[in-house]
């Protein structure tokens, strides 16, 4: 009952193996969630962590008859899809893998991007040669009944490509993924002395950004767990990393605290961030709680499991 979550990859940008990332892990993002009485499997993102998840499924679930897998891609940047060709269940006859992801202005863009990896120029197996069937489901913002008591809500996030936040609800428990995400910004000149300053644009830019940030907070408010992009510290963010599409630890904690979130997992660790540095950040920002008053804040670690 409830929801169980396992982190198979927590790193951002690019797999970062090595002695400095052994404890938190170097694989890029992949989460496994098991929901409700049916133990419904939901996979979020197909970073390099999905290889180990696939092997684990082969040893247990697939052997027990699993023939349908749902993967929810937050977006199609490389670090979130590069593990997909190494997902072993793809090579099982009779397996159906459903890829859910954000719609775009282009038709069939998920199929083009994900299926497009299976070409000889990138990979030795073509999509036609796969034993499984891949289906693509493009999502807009909204609420969706996934069956077996599992509900999904979606919200677009601010990232330099179409990017979707997911909120799963089951058995009265909920968790939301908010990555990759930089707070919405007013992109127009805000300084009155600036050469491109236009009062209407500046005002509309500020209003729109504030409104969208409020909507993201409403989207995850009250969740038992949110898993949020926190690639930078505030100082790093303001040092030439604005517009890169990621959040600062301090900003994420502040926003979550004001929205009745019980637990906050920080994820998408910078590839340059060593284990010792994450420990140092954890020493500064970690809090233990799991109630509306005191939020549990922690840095996600590869292999970590959480039960809601």
């Amino acid at each position, binding site marked *: 009952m409830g929801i169980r979550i396992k982190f198979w990859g927590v790193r951002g940008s690019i797999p970062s193996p090595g002695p400095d990332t052994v404890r938190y892990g170097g694989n890029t993002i992949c989460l496994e969630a098991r929901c409700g009485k049916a133990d419904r499997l939901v996979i979020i993102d197909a970073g390099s962590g999905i290889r180990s998840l696939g092997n684990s499924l082969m040893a247990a679930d697939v052997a027990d008859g699993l023939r349908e897998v749902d993967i929810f891609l937050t977006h199609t940047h490389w670090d979130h899809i590069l593990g997909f060709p190494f997902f072993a269940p793809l090579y099982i006859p009779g397996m159906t893998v459903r890829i859910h992801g954000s*719609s775009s*202005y282009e038709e069939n863009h998920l199929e083009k991007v994900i299926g497009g990896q299976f070409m000889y120029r990138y990979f030795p197996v073509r999509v036609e040669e796969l034993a499984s069937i891949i289906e693509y489901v493009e999502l*807009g*913002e909204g609420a969706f009944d996934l069956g077996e008591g599992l509900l999904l809500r979606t919200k677009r996030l601010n990232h330099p490509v179409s990017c979707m936040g997911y909120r799963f609800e089951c058995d009265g428990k909920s968790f939301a993924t908010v990555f990759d995400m930089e707070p919405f910004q*007013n*992109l127009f*000149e805000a300084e009155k002395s600036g050469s491109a300053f236009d009062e209407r644009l500046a005002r509309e830019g500020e209003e*729109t950004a504030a409104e*969208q940030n409020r909507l993201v907070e409403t989207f995850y408010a009250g969740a038992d767990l949110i898993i949020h992009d926190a690639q930078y510290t505030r100082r790093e963010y303001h040092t030439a990393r604005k517009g890169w599409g990621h959040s600062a630890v301090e900003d994420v904690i502040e926003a979550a605290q004001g929205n009745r979130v019980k637990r906050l997992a920080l994820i998408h660790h910078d590839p340059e961030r060593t284990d010792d540095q994450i420990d140092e950040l954890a020493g500064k920002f970690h809090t233990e709680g799991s109630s509306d008053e005191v939020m549990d804040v922690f840095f996600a670690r590869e292999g970590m499991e959480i039960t809601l």
Partner: protein
Amino acid sequence: MERSLQRDSIPTNRIERYMARMPSLPVTVNRVMEICNSPSTSPYDLNRVISLDPVLTGQVLRLVNSAYYGLRNEVTSLPRAIIMLGMNTIKNLVVSSAILSTMSGRDDVHALDMDAFWLHSLSAAVAAKRLAACIKIPAENQEEYFVGGLLHDLGKIPLNSLFPSEYAEIMAEAPQKGTDLCEKERKFLGIDHTQVGGMIAEKWKLGVAIEDCLRLHHESLSASERNVDRVRIVALADLCARRFGPDNAGTCCFDEEAVDMMRLALSIDQTDLDDLRETMADEIEKAMIFLHIAGGDHGDKD
């Protein structure tokens, strides 16, 4: 002999297919590419270049109002759409429309002179915004009138591209008065540009207000009570653009009576209309400078 398409044979599905991949206007293509390919694209420039092209404006608003975003109210503001969708998505979207425009080629024989179409659309947009100020529409809402004016003739683009020879005959025969043009379009093609404009606005979910501007600007008395002023403003802006706009050089027929009726219905002074000529000329000149295109004689066009 007139070659008219039968009413039943009008392939609205062809129009709908075309709507999904509508090219931007040739006049903006170079500047769109230049701005989007710059490593440090300015949101101000991106907003400006989109706001000068009815197709790009429509496409961006279409995306933000589609199921892509879960919105309760339509977005009719470009700056808002740019922040919600992000610069990269907008750049990708407008570049694809611009590429379609380069692929369709500037030399295709089409009835509609696309440069003149652009001048007329922009003139009507400028006029609509100015007239909105005259009837005391708050500054933050005046941009919606600009968009209504910019997009009002969008329905001509699919007709011109999909039925070039028929449209050439229509343009040759139709006196340059909007209602007659609509009649000719319906006679030859079974559908007119206001109906096609309404289809576009509906399909692209541009909202009832803009849809009414596209669908009813030649019969502004039919507008719903809620949008009647907006439609009349766009209709009057259309007439003024034909009279004063640089696309026209003042040579085409001009329905003085219609202008007076509309002006009085909206309680707009004649002096306000007189000021429009200069406003339009200034804004067109600024747009041309921004787009890096030369001015000059733009002929006598609808």
